């Protein structure tokens, strides 16, 4: 009788949906799991010790971190203002902020070239100040930031929205300046959303391929000229074939996965600052 009762809960809908869901889950998980386990630890270790590989991975992580830091510095204020103020055309503006997610990555790179390229506009301006973007670390950072910062802005905005504006009002009447209110009340309470947005931004930044390829293929970094890891994988694949590309792919997938899982766990746990 209990057997029947247990089976009864699996009605036809759940069975059909379960089957379809299983296909989707396998489709996502199989490639990840299969690739992660396809190279021996020794091969991976040897690959990591190649100077081209480790300088590439270092460059990717470092540029991703820089992009995230700059994104925090400029994106968090924007997110705060969007959460607290209403204005005409806000909806459209918020839509435009999400545009980098939509446009083809290589086209994003070209769009960035139009603004930051040596012969154009800001590029010229900043060039006079000695800052160039084409084939430099700054270019990698800018390409990464462009395609990934919308994730941070969206998440931070939702975080700020969930902080009761009356907490800020009370703090003001208690004698706190707007800056003190922001750093001692609003930011600590929205921190979790900002942090998990940063993790998403960082993850998206280090995985970027197209925009970086256009703007900054090989860049001078730590005395070498590495390229970012996603490009390295593609280069090895197109020049030497799958077998040669595999260990690098596995390595960057594993590193991305471990960093993402660790940071995500931290984001879910760290309710308090």
């Amino acid at each position, binding site marked *: 009788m209990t057997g029947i009762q247990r089976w009864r809960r699996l009605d036809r809908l759940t069975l059909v949906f379960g089957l379809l869901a299983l296909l989707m889950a396998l489709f996502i998980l199989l490639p990840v799991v299969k690739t992660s386990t396809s190279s021996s630890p020794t091969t991976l270790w040897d690959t990591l010790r190649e100077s081209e590989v480790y300088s590439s991975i270092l460059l990717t992580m470092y540029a991703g971190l820089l992009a995230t830091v700059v994104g925090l510095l400029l994106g968090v204020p924007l997110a705060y203002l969007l959460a607290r103020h209403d204005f005409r055309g806000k909806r459209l503006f918020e839509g435009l902020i999400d545009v980098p997610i939509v446009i083809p990555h290589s086209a994003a790179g070209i769009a960035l070239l139009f603004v930051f390229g040596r012969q154009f506009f800001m590029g010229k301006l900043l060039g006079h100040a000695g800052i160039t973007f084409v084939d430099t670390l700054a270019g990698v950072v800018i390409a990464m930031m462009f395609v990934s910062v919308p994730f941070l802005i969206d998440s931070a905005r939702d975080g700020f929205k969930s902080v009761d504006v*009356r907490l800020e*009002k*009370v703090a*003001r*009447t*208690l*004698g*706190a300046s707007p800056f003190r209110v922001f750093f001692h009340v609003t930011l600590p*309470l929205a921190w979790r959303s900002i942090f998990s947005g940063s993790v998403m931004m960082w993850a998206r930044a280090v995985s970027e391929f197209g925009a970086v390829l256009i703007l900054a293929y090989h860049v001078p970094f730590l005395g070498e000229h590495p390229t970012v890891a996603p490009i390295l994988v593609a280069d090895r694949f197109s020049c030497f074939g799958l077998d040669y590309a595999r260990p690098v792919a596995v390595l960057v997938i594993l590193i991305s996965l471990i960093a993402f899982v660790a940071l995500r766990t931290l984001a879910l746990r760290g309710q308090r600052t």
Partner: protein
Amino acid sequence: MIEVRGLKVDLGGFLLRDIDLHVEPGEYFIVLGPTGAGKTVLLEAIAGLYPVLAGTVSVNGRDVTHLKPEQRGIAIVYQDQVLFPHLSVEQNIAFGLKSIKRPGQQIQASVTRMAQVFGIVDLLGRDPTTLSGGEKQKVALARALVTEPAVLLLDEPLSALDPETKERMQQQLAEVHRCLRVTVIHVTHDFEEAIALGNRVAVINEGQIAQVGTPEDVLRRPNSEFVARFALSRNLFTGEATELGAGQAMVDIGGIQIMALTDARGQVHVSLRPEDVFISTEPFQSTARNSFAGTITELVDRGAVVNVTVTVPPDFICLVTRQAAAELDLRKGARVWITFKASAIHVF
């Protein structure tokens, strides 16, 4: 002291307009109005937290209309307290003093003193999300008062509490106001709160101040239906309660003494519903503890029932059926006895 002149605020749909308030130093001032009358926004406008369309606000003679909220010396306590959820109770109370950069030792001393005033020393280490409603309210008040504001704004501070906690909080509010001598503006929709706490009351109706005066003034000569309806639904008196055995008291309401079931002592307010008063043409022995002779001074016909005013003095409003009035031949000038039970008296 706080003075508000010609304040005009857009509530998105309707306007609060021509708001003039003059609150004396140390006064406990009540703003009374029905739900949705914009009372919270009025307080936020006074504190500089909501944009005003016109008007001025001065605190102790200084025009603060163009000052930032943190420069006005006006503190606000919201109905649901909004304590900082990421700070401990102690850090909540200390927040204001840290903002104005008091030395650490002085902060420690002030916080401890304020915690003693409110009897929340035990709670200082607690997480505010674990507190009960009454405890949160005490912390919110301590957090506001520790900064020694010139004016304290209270937004329905008692309405979210259960009846018992509410009564205790009400006494504590009165006590704190007496001890700390802070000027208070307290908005509410509850008449009994207004009567129990207010030195003066302003009634807000349809976005304007309908009436200002002592609670008695407003109740005796109401010029809004909102007040009038309440005034007709209660007999309200102020008196001195003295002990009469555990759980009972004799309340002197000026002229007569009435018996009530209460633990309150000293200055109190009492209310009695008109339908709880009996009228008889002769005195009689019953379990009702309160029986007084008086003269009928007014009869108002309300359909199936009649409102009878009997002057003892004071005046009592009584509600009787039309048949009863006819049968006993109740008419103006007649001598009658009114009787009500001790348990019918509400003391607050």
